[in-house]
């Protein structure tokens, strides 16, 4: 079968778009990419939700998930699948008879979504990119962005205790790192405070979301539900995610 001629221009992939979203920047030279990729780059700034969720939703609707169509099916794969199914059936059987349900920790793992760090100091002009390059906060943001939450936690703590105890934005993101480490009590306190008195209004919904997640992880579902209902009233990334969690509880938004 004839192969397509190699293209002179590169092609942006799903992984590239996911990276742009994760790092918050387009780290490629657009001129080296084909016209379609260049046109698609214009959409990156308008993507708020994790693109993985969008792609997975679309793939699900199109019936592309687990189609196995793009690869040859090997005997080993079939054996692995059969073994997995057998294990799942056994686990399901045991879980059913022990009356177990999905734990808060599992729900947390399923629904946690990272929030890009918004450096409002730079936005306000009280701090510049150049002089910020080596300070603790920058290192904390860097670690947070790389999802190294354990490292980010320590650095945020250092920044908040030594450099700027009044930096409520950093405190909110410090809360997210605590949540990830399972340090739920201090995380809840930070999210409640951020929710009631957000440093910028835009943090109210994310703070509510992470507060709900912390309650879920703590198995305090009754505290999470009203927060999720509140979020589900709006069609943004938090609203959609809250609706998903509510449907995991077997509830509909607004019920």
């Amino acid at each position: 079968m004839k192969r397509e001629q190699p293209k002179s221009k590169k092609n942006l992939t799903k992984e590239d778009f996911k990276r742009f979203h994760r790092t918050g920047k387009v780290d490629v030279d657009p001129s080296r990419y084909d016209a379609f990729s260049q046109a698609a780059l214009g959409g990156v700034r308008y993507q708020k939700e994790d693109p993985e969720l969008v792609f997975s939703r679309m793939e699900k609707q199109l019936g592309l998930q687990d189609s196995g169509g793009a690869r040859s099916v090997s005997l080993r794969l079939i054996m692995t699948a059969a073994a997995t199914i057998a294990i799942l059936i056994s686990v399901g059987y045991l879980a059913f008879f022990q009356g177990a349900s999905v734990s808060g920790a599992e729900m947390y793992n399923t629904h946690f979504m990272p929030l890009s760090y918004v450096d409002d100091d730079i936005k306000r002009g009280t701090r510049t990119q150049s002089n910020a390059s080596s300070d603790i906060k920058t290192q904390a943001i860097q670690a947070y962005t790389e999802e190294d939450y354990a490292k980010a936690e320590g650095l945020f703590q250092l920044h908040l205790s030594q450099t700027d105890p009044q930096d409520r934005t950093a405190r909110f993101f410090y809360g997210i790192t605590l949540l990830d480490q399972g340090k739920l009590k201090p995380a809840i306190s930070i999210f409640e405070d951020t929710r009631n008195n957000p440093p910028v209004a835009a943090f109210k919904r994310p703070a509510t979301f992470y507060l709900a997640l912390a309650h879920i992880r703590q198995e305090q579902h009754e505290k999470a539900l009203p927060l999720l209902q509140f979020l589900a009233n709006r069609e943004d990334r938090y609203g959609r995610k809250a609706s998903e969690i509510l449907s995991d509880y077997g509830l509909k938004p607004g019920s």
Partner: protein
Amino acid sequence: MSRFLRPKYNKLGDENLIELFKQRRDEAALNCLIKRYMSKVYYFSLSILKNQMDAEDAAMEVWANLKNHLVRYQIDNFSAWLMKVTKTESLKVLKGRMKNRFEELSEKNDPALMEFPLFEALDDRNPELEKLSKAVDELKEEQNRCIVAFYFQGMSYEEIAEEEGFELSKVKSHLQNGKRNLRLQLTK
């Protein structure tokens, strides 16, 4: 073709995948083609619509029609063709969204209805809408965020203020300045 002897689709070019689908109705080849372009179609549509849900709808419409298109037409350059189809579908969705927003603001007698050039473009052809969508990208960051949230995403002033962390008066001012700059851009 035996299920165990399928070609390695990922290694095939677009034209080979189309050929496989047209000749053998090979759904796996079609799926591979869709997966290959899924992100580009979505993000290109998002660049025009500036609204995630609308972009998702437009992209899904593109994929829903793909099978018929492949059967009916002879497509020589799939990438260029798909880009054109995505643009057409996105502009169609944009036109629909703007019409809805126009009606919504008319009902409320909202002053924001006035002077927004996008509404004047509704009766025109697609190039005008496309030009406007691009002009919105050129606006200053705050103006862009307010214009996109208000007109493209249908948010209220209060919701924008909350989401973006601006004061209400600032939202109105960014919208006003954004509209003025859009007009200037378009009359250049």
